[in-house]
């Protein structure tokens, strides 16, 4: 049994959907009859709409339920083109896709600014507007009576027989799902997941949060437009009744049921909903109740939809057959067991850059978190930033990364002033960071997490991700090789294929370091990278940090572990109550009286500064 499974798994995964697609394509040869072909046509059209939802909802994490409006935009574009004598189906499909894209972009921009509810509601609103807009342009759209002046479609100058629409629909669906699958498997797909986990993380690897969201939302509109054009040509009739709220809910239910974060789940979900829709009228009365129940059950019980169940099943069989976790080709020789010390990997020289912070100030209301703070971190050095809780360390990091706007002062990275740049622009200048609480998207392998750090290096366009040309393959190979190097450096190479979110804290911290490093940053900010690590892990971390420094990167270490700081840092900056208390080499800091008092809490009798400071209440801001 398991041998059979092993044999099945040797077949590349794309073969199965391709085989099913081919089967559906040649189905008419078996004479299935009108009912079945009609069902398949409608299911595939719905599946196109649903797959758009899967991109925007499942992958990009944007709850947009306006797919019905984009579907309508596509259908009416095709219908009006056809009525005007432009019967070429290819032209209509392309135009419909573009029209849907335009609707998606125009309505997505305002909704995306606020995220979840706003987008859900603006897109939901869009669906309610369809009949109004159709009525307003009654002359072109036929109003609520429908558009019935469409001409028979042609393809490459030849008129299409009614039966031929079946082939057109199946082929469009096959092409679209191939495109969809390639986009999802590319770094753009991973980028969506990173964004879904945390916008902060996404911008810190150099992604523009807004643009990535908009891209996901807009791409999701395109297949809905295709579907609309196909629907219009299937019946040569367009009516606003096909694009109601009922339809929108049905599409959402199909997406949730099939599994929003899946490619082929859309087809499955669509077939269930379509089957439900088609049951003669006495059953249709219950359809809203069913859709609602699907949404409820799908949301509560079936977190990944049917596709998620299938995936878990496959994973289980793989494990039983010993096929998982896979190892990368190179890792087999590594020989390390359980995340030991860093391997002797060559870390190529990194072109570091100095980080200069000059008289920066930041206040939150009346709380002056930072006042006139200046420091300089040189490339090839570890600059440690220490200070008690609430002294402004994390605020400073957030200012450097652009998550806060500073009130005064200047920050430059390798000589370039960051001014008011947004976080992703600063990331692109070569600043990268780790987080106090590691941010790792769920459901992504360790290797992909590292690769997500390379989002800005070797840009891969959507088109090349879809076509998978030689350039795409070369970059992908390079990505994998780099990820493996970095993982070996931090001692995680043996976990290459494991789901990253399941790792223990220490390994997740190391993984964050690998992700930050894979981009060859000029400046690396480590935000309490050692907290929660055991002694062996701290040692590994220290060794890794030394090698990063020797490679030429400017490392800023925010840390509470004083011993680690003393052993690692070339320079130490001590912050207290929002200002620089002391700065110097580890020896100087270790012997600085005020630091001993303020930070280490060693009060020496007769110590003048300590008495003086005692008059002011220490500010403690909430973490």
């Amino acid at each position, binding site marked *: 049994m398991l041998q059979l499974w092993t044999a099945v798994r040797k077949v590349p995964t794309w073969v199965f959907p391709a085989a099913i697609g081919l089967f559906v394509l040649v189905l008419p040869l078996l004479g299935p009859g009108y009912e079945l072909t009609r069902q398949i046509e409608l299911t595939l059209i719905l599946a196109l709409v649903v797959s758009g939802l899967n991109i925007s909802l499942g992958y990009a994490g944007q709850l947009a339920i306006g797919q019905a409006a984009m579907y309508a935009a596509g259908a009416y574009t095709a219908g009006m083109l056809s009525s005007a004598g432009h019967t070429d189906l290819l032209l209509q499909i392309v135009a419909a896709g573009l029209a849907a894209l335009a609707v998606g972009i125009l309505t997505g921009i305002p909704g995306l600014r606020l995220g979840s509810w706003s987008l859900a509601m603006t897109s939901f609103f869009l669906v309610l507007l369809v009949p109004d807009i159709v009525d307003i342009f009654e002359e072109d759209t036929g109003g609520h009576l429908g558009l019935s002046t469409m001409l028979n479609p042609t393809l490459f100058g030849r008129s299409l027989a009614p039966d031929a629409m079946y082939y057109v629909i199946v082929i469009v669906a096959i092409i679209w799902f191939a495109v969809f699958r390639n986009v999802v498997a590319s770094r753009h797909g991973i980028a969506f997941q990173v964004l879904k986990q945390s916008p902060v993380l996404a911008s810190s690897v150099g992604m523009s949060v807004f643009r990535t969201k908009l891209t996901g939302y807009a791409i999701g509109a395109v297949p809905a437009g295709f579907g609309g054009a196909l629907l219009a040509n299937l019946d040569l009739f367009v009516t606003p009744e096909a694009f109601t709220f009922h339809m929108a809910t049905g599409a959402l*239910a199909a997406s949730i049921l099939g599994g929003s974060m899946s490619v082929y789940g859309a087809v499955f979900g669509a077939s269930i909903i379509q089957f439900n829709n088609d049951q003669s009228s006495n059953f249709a009365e219950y359809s809203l109740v069913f859709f609602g129940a699907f949404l409820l059950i799908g949301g509560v019980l079936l977190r990944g939809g049917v596709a998620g169940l299938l995936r878990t099943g496959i994973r289980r069989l793989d494990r039983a057959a010993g096929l998982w976790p896979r190892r990368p080709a190179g890792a087999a020789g590594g020989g390390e067991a359980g995340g030991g010390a860093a391997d002797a990997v060559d870390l190529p020289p990194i072109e570091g850059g100095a980080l200069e912070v000059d008289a920066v100030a930041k206040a939150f209301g009346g709380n002056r978190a930072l006042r006139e703070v200046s420091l300089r971190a040189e490339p090839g050095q570890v600059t440690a930033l220490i200070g008690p809780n609430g002294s402004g360390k994390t605020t400073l990091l957030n200012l450097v990364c652009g998550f806060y706007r500073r009130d005064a002062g200047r920050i430059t990275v390798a000589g370039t002033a960051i001014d008011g740049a947004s976080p992703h622009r600063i990331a692109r200048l070569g600043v990268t960071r780790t987080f106090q609480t590691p941010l790792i998207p769920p459901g992504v392998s360790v290797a992909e997490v590292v690769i997500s750090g390379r989002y800005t290096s070797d840009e891969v366009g959507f088109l090349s991700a879809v076509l998978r040309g030689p350039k795409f393959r070369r970059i992908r190979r390079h990505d994998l090789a780099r990820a493996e190097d970095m993982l070996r450096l931090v001692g995680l190479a043996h976990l290459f294929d494991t789901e990253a979110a399941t790792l223990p804290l220490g390994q997740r911290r190391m993984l964050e370091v690998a992700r930050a490093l894979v981009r060859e940053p000029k400046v690396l900010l480590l935000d309490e990278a050692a907290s929660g690590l055991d002694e062996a892990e701290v040692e590994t971390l220290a060794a890794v940090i030394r090698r990063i420094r020797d490679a030429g990167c400017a490392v800023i270490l925010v840390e509470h572990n004083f011993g680690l700081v003393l052993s690692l840092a070339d320079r130490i900056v001590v912050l207290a109550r929002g200002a620089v208390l002391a700065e110097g080499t580890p020896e100087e800091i270790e012997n600085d009286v005020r630091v001993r008092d303020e930070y280490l809490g060693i009060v020496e009798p007769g110590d003048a500064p300590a008495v003086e400071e005692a008059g002011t209440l220490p500010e403690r801001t909430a973490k």
Partner: protein
Amino acid sequence: MTLIYAGLSLGAVYALVAIGYNIVFIASHSFNFAQAQLMMIGAFVTYTGYVTFKLPTVAVLALAMVVVAVLSAIEERIAIRPVSDHQTQLITTLGFGTILTGVAQLIWGTQPLQVPFFAGAEVLTILGGRVFPVEVALVVFAVALVVAITFYTRRRMGGLAVVAMSQDEEAATLRGIDVRMLAFAAFAVTGVLGGLMGAAIGPKTFAVASLGAALAIKGFVALAIGGFGSMYGGLLGGFAIGLVEQYVARYLGSNFTNLSVFVLLLLVLMIRPTGLFGRVQERTV
């Protein structure tokens, strides 16, 4: 004047939906998509109470409140509690709302039903404008409700507990607040109010299954204009939409009412994404 009255009373309907969203939002930071559908059920129950059972007003109101509160409690149990993240709650509450719409269609059909109002339907003339008693009642009800809720959340222990829970659930638990119970209670109270609101809006909007979707949207726009969590904001937002709709319908045609509200929503989101009374949050990491 007549136009203004019509706009204000329609706005009061939207404001009531916004208030419903706000209570749940303040209590649990989640968004109850099914709020408008609950009110729709309230309107239907009121109709049944008056027309089918011929009950007195007090009994009708009590019936509507009880039915909707029970539905609301069920929703909290099956659509909110088992789901932890707010994104999925949007989907499950939408699912619950869809079920309610479907059930309402099965029970009451798809034709609009005229819900009677206890103070009659004789047209009043105030300051030169003509207005139905129910319209006056709606505006008064919405304003009174907002004032009462604001008083409760600022001055009373129970209200403060709700606010505490919304700010920091763990800290609230440590202060001895039963967070689960309170969130549940907030839902049940929303249900009671929802029933009452349904009874109030029914005479104005008619009871019809498609009411839910339209109200859900407009209520949301009211909230977006006013700012999430702001009671007065929701009220003002509701009135603003009502007035815009009435004026647009009068001077441009009824095809343009939804479109104009949509444009209004987009403008607000573009210019002031947090709404008129919303607050900005800076800390991200």
